[in-house]
């Protein structure tokens, strides 16, 4: 068990998987000598060479397409999009091509690859380095979507994503890259299954379902509420597609009160799916409305510290929402 930051855990996962399987390769802008703008691929090119750690041109559509070509030929590419905000030029290749390869060929072809991208805000990244894009991909059958929030989860889930037989969009909360630090296992011991949520903290009164950066915020809010006598169960989804409905329903049945907490713009965010599904399937057990706590519907997070702060959820806002729900 080493103590690692989230970005170090990502790098460890890449390194171990490349060591384990010669088919695994990495491509993207600046992934080579620079080691990526967040250092997630640091040291990989010196170790594995400029082919297996390939600096691509500044063209996301072709990054996705080239990764796809490699996957179709039996490689296990891990493509990096420098920021999730810049994944959109590749949207057609991802949604129309990569996601549909298996289905449209009636199972004759498959497209196992990972597309990694730093997501979310809170680092003064402004409108184009802060977006939360998971909802776009969670609506796409054929894709899996992962969004971890601890170093151990990041490593374990990235390793699993690389070994998965299907394409995985792997979103990394950039605010946690260096801020999150914790113990991480080596090698096979680190592996975690996709599709399983983590019950981060048990509780009896309210279920707080979240993911990504807001896991830590929600935990803080839960601690604060505990002192007020409100017992919050915190669940980190970790994988968004497929998401762990049974873990969430189990919690709902226990508490009868659910908040879904996410960083993206509220309307049409992935939290809508979670809320709609739980409100439908858990209806008989609900003592209060399934409540969404999300970011405002503005196009993206502004640069100004004052506006960024106004945009982002924080412990105060989450605690207030959970308190309201407990008191419903």
């Amino acid at each position, binding site marked *: 068990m080493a103590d690692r930051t989230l970005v170090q855990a990502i790098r460890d996962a890449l390194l171990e998987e490349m060591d384990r399987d010669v088919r695994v390769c990495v491509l993207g802008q600046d992934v080579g000598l620079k080691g990526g703008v967040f250092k997630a691929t640091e040291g990989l090119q010196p170790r594995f060479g400029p082919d297996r750690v390939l600096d691509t041109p500044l063209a996301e559509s*072709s990054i996705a*397409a080239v990764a796809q070509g490699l996957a179709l030929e039996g490689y296990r590419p891990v493509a990096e999009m420098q920021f999730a905000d810049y994944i959109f030029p590749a949207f057609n290749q991802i949604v129309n091509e990569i996601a549909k390869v298996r289905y449209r060929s009636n199972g*004759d072809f498959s497209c196992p690859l990972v597309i990694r991208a730093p997501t979310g805000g809170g680092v003064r990244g402004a409108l184009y380095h802060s977006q939360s894009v998971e909802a776009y991909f969670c609506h796409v059958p054929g894709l899996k979507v992962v969004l971890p929030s601890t170093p151990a989860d990041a490593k374990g889930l990235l390793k699993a994503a690389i070994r998965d037989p299907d394409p995985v969009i792997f979103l990394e909360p950039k605010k946690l890259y260096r801020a999150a630090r914790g113990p991480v296992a080596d090698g096979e011991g680190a592996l975690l299954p996709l599709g399983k949520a983590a019950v981060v903290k048990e509780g009896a009164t309210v279920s707080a379902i979240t993911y990504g950066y807001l896991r830590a915020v929600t935990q803080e809010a839960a601690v604060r509420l505990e002192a007020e006598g409100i017992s919050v169960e915190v669940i980190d989804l970790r994988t968004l597609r497929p998401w762990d409905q049974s873990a969430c329903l189990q919690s709902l049945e226990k508490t009868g009160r659910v908040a879904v907490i996410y960083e993206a713009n509220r309307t049409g965010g992935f939290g809508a799916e979670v809320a709609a599904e739980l409100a439908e399937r858990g209806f008989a057990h609900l003592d209060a409305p399934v409540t969404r706590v999300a970011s405002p519907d503005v196009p993206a997070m502004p640069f100004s510290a004052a506006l960024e702060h106004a945009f982002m959820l924080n412990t105060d806002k989450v605690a207030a929402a959970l308190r309201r729900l407990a008191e419903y």
Partner: protein
Amino acid sequence: MSTPAELDGLTRERVLWAYGIVLRARYLDDRRFILNRAGKLAFIISPRGHEVAQVAAITALQPGRDRFCLYYRDFAAALACGFTPEELMLSAFARAADPSSGGRQTPGNFGSRRRGIIIGSSAVGTQIPKAAGIGLALKWRAEGALCYVSFGEGATSQGDFHEGLNFAALHHCPVIFLCENNHWAISVPEARQVAGPGVAARAAAYGIPGVAVAGDDFLAVHAAVRAAAERARRGEGPTLIEARVLRLQSHSTDDDQRAYRDPAELEAEAALDPVPRMRAWLLAVGWLTEPDDARFQEEVAREVEAATVAAEAAPEPDPSTLTRHVYADG
């Protein structure tokens, strides 16, 4: 058209085999149109006018070894790559046994893993950078295989065309980019589609060879593709080839080109059908005789009829399979 002196490694047998493929494509196409008018086939994209170019290109390559990213108009190319008439008819009828997609895609999205035909989609141009990625893998594997990717001149307007060529050229990927330039993208003429001196001339922007050939000249297309293949197998990188062809049908059975094209031009083009021209050339050089040709055509007609009957009788996909193959475990 050229004479056998220029044959560039081609044998008479191989050329006649190619002619047989061209005939099958044409007979199948005729049959499909009849079935479409009878309400039995929902949708067809015809290769009419492109057949000779398509088959000449594939004849210069090695199905089984190479990879093929075909596009929806590559019906004759698909036959040349090994699809049988019955298989293509299964696809036209959207039958369960359609080897490309089990009836999930419109016919024209060809795929077969064992044949190296990479399953396509209908989204124009997406195959181009994908082929660059396949080419990169083949280069790494260094077994001399290459990736052939075809598309219309309309597809050259997509950003993906540029990104694919730039990538393949940068990394010397063994890829042959073949543009079947029929001068129309549905109703949009080349003059409103391709700025500048033309498709082949765009190769220079990436520092790779660009070659324009007459698509009804079997030997010319074959030679261009063969040279590109040798170059690719030698590790020298990609080539862009523009085969100038005619679209002798409307874009698809959902289109009627008389609404936007000059009737005189349509008539003039009809007289330039490359299939009878290939036949005339083979007769002229003595590789084909009238009686042989008649026998050929009869055989093909029989084969096409048998394929049609078998495909029509084949079962439709079971509705319960709708949700299969979304993920590996489903």
